[in-house]
């Protein structure tokens, strides 16, 4: 499903060069949920962005479903994200000018792969049925994050990448969201790699990885 080999990344400023990732390697199997923890600035989000093809690595390789995606041109990386990856962010990143219904089908329509039955199930499981005609600004934080998860899963991705999806939520809502994530990942059979600060939430996933000094422990 996902295989990361010897991935490295550094940021250069006028004053110094900061090595964020130093030869990171990991793997996520289909249906497996993995938590990625670490201190602020340890490179968790960077690792997720490199896997998603949002940023370019300095070295190493990322393999998704048996294909190396490192160094692909923008068009190919965009196609990969569109069809095989689901992304969930801390800031929800919904489209404010689209209704809940349109946000839910947003990526599926981009991928040209809309499955009405699956969308109906997602909408019901995420508790969005009564909110479909609303706009994101009319939803609570928990509802917005549920919608973001729905959008990511609507395309039936091979891998779901979640970057602190509960960072903006209270404890109860966060628990609820992670529970949903786990259920839906199990239901769809995709892999999940979730960045989180919360050890409590990390413990609810199948496996935990800790990033420190640019290396996984």
């Amino acid at each position, binding site marked *: 499903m996902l295989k990361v080999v010897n991935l490295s990344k550094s940021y250069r400023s006028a004053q110094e060069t900061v090595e964020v990732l130093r030869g990171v390697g990991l793997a996520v199997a289909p249906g497996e949920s993995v938590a990625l923890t670490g201190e602020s600035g340890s490179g968790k989000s960077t690792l997720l*962005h490199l896997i*998603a093809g*949002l*940023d370019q690595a300095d070295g190493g390789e990322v393999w998704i479903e048996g294909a190396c995606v490192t160094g692909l041109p*923008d*068009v190919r990386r*965009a*196609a*990969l*994200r*569109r*069809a095989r*990856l689901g*992304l969930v*962010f801390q*800031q929800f*990143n*919904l*489209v*404010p*000018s*689209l209704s809940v219904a*349109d946000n839910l089908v*947003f*990526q599926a*329509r*981009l*991928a*040209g792969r809309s499955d009405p039955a699956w969308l109906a199930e997602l909408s019901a499981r995420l508790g969005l049925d009564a909110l479909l005609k609303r*706009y994101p*600004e009319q*939803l*609570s*934080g928990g509802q*917005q994050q549920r919608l973001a998860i729905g*959008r990511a899963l609507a395309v039936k991705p091979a891998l779901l990448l979640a970057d602190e999806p509960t960072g*903006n939520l209270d404890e109860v809502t966060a628990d609820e969201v992670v529970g949903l994530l786990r259920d839906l990942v199990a239901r769809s059979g995709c892999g999940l790699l979730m960045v989180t600060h919360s050890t409590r939430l990390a413990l609810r996933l199948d496996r935990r990885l800790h990033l420190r000094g640019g290396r996984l422990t």
Partner: protein
Amino acid sequence: MRRALWVLAVLLSHWRRHPLQLATLLVGLIAATALWSGVQALNQQARTSYDRAAALFGGTRVAMLIDPAHATFPQAAFIELRRAGWPVSPVLEQRVEVGGRALRLIGIEPVTMPAETAAGAAVGRGDLHAFVAPPGRTLIAPETLRDLGLRPGATPRIDRSAELPPLQPQPQLAPGVLIVDIGMAQRVLDRPGLVSRLLVGHTTRNAAELPETVAGTHLQWVAPDGETDLARLTDSFHLNLTAFGLLSFLVGLFIVNSAIGLAFEQRRPTLRTLRACGVSVRLLNVVVVAELVFLALVGGLVGLVCGYVIAAALLPDVAASLRGLYGAQLPGALALQPRWWLAGIAMSVGGALAAATASLVRMARLPLLAAAQPDAWRQAQRRWLSRQGALAALMLIAAGGVLLFGDSLLAGFAVLAALLLAAALALPVVLDGALQLAAKGARGALSAWFWADSRQQLPGLSLALMALLLALAVNVGVGTMVRSFSVTFTRWLDGRLAADIYVSAANETQAAEIRRWLAARDDIGAVLPGARTEIRIGGAPVQIMGVADHATYRDNWPLLRAAADGWDRMHRGGAAFVSEQLSRRLHLGVGDRLRIDDDWSVDVVGVYGDYGNPKGQLAVDIDALLRHFPETPQTRFGLLVAPEHIAGVLAALREKFHLDARQLADQATVKAESKRIFNRTFAVTAALNTFTLGVAGVALLTSLMTLSGSRLPQLAPLWAIGLTRRRLAAIELMKTMAVACVTALLALPLGLVVAWCLIAVVNIKAFGWRLPFQVFPAQLLELLGVAMVAALLATLPPVLRLARMQPATLIRIFANER
């Protein structure tokens, strides 16, 4: 394709949620397209009209032969040249009056008329036999027939004497022109056996093969020219209009730029989400451009309709100006060609893309993961301001360079454009500096926040303020120029209109009768004979004006510079005064010598102002003129009459000789008519000035309206810590008014520099004369007031919205859900 359409739908959904922003963008596009295309419609209408006039009857589209010394020459030259195998065709032309309207009567010989002139076709549409055989036909444009209030078949009289053949409307004809057979023209104009020019059809022969004299006349070959006389004369007028149209277009684009910039900022998260969800940069760029083109097409189409309405509203004033200034006739209804529509749409799309360039480039380079850092923003802002300042300095140097080395009307406008652009670019730098300075002197937390927040708000407002600066500076510049012109023109009229009554007899016989009758009256102080003829010097028409030796001319003539004994030398016959236009065109100064024709050369002993006359002019002694040009009609004279006798003399002349308003006028009427023409000439300028200022006001309003939403995160914390909404609104009002006031104050000196450029650079190139530069403080104060009222009106709506904002809206700023 489906993916692209979905991305387009997502992008368009932004406008559904922000209708005001969409309205702003469309208003900008509509205003820009409407003002530009409106002006272009007027220009196109005029140029088409000139071309119609020239193409039909040989303006300068075909080669022609003229007598450089006389208005007409014997028809025998035509016969001699035809016998020698030259494909020439005679034309007799004279201005006549029909029903109180001045028209051009043109006599043609349809059989020999060169094919290039298309006159044959125009006549051929009727019946050639009916045109040449008695009673003949008078071809006339349908709109002219309508203007005269006559029906086809009518036989009006010209100049209250000769009767014209029956009128026949001919749609191909230019307005203001009457076409008759040349034999008929010679009869009704009392010019038997004379022609004005010979048109030369297609031939392999050239000027060098022409005999020295033809039928005793020395004929001059005038080569064909791509541009008509009228087109050349009116070029400056149309260039002025175009410059205004372009300025309005640019001000409109400021609105577009502001709206697109804001939309880009607001859609930045959506664009990132689209990229994150798998939309490639290429697809996103294509769709964003497609969206922009679609909006530009909608705005452009509405703008074209508005442009048509503006052009139709301004057409009467433009037509009157062109008629008054150059004698050019424009039809009363707009007729637009397809290329006008296409050009308008192209301008709208091109303008929208140009206005969006910065946003499009930023979008193309949009990093997927960039996080906004306030400090980075500040540094970027500082870098941008430095670049803008450097660019402003470069533009200023460029303006100086063109001013020093340029020598054309276009160079004059280039100086103006560079100067205005430099000032606009420098404005945010100057304002930022002023606000920084004010912040240093601030005491108290609120005061410090006031200046700091004003600085932060500046980037969002700077484009609208730049538009306000440009519109206001141009208003000040053009206003000062027009007022200077008005004052100078009035003074000049006082000098040139020395006589109390002006008489223009129908012919020499009537003139002699009038002179005899006047001599017998004791209420006439003096009769000042006048005579005028036209020649060509350096290929361009020049009027020679005969001036009588009388103290009133010596006292009042508007001389700009002259030799001490200028008048005496002029009346001895060997010297002349030249108009400023002619002196500049031929580089003549006092003391130079000018060759009028083969046997008459004169010393230049003075230069005088002759505003509004597109032709060059010479003032010579009237007896000398009549000696050298004995055929010059002596039908005009001025009368010096005591004020209490003017009405009586006018009435007596009118009754005795049946003179109409064109033949008889008192000084007051001529002055009033001249001032009316003057005012109408600048009515279009005033209208475009107002439009431009209005568009700048809209730019400010739209910027403030669109900014008001994004300002809430800055204002809500102040409300939370105890400032009332009203006080916040008052602070917002003060901030905007402060920067608008500084902008308006900067626009005043800039406007005066613009006025100086118009007077000292553009006017000289456009018209050939220079005005004295004057400043009108009351006018400046008035414009400052108008600008502040416009700024206040633009600031009030968002401020009132803030003052009435529900607390819930402000609370939402702090809510976690946001």
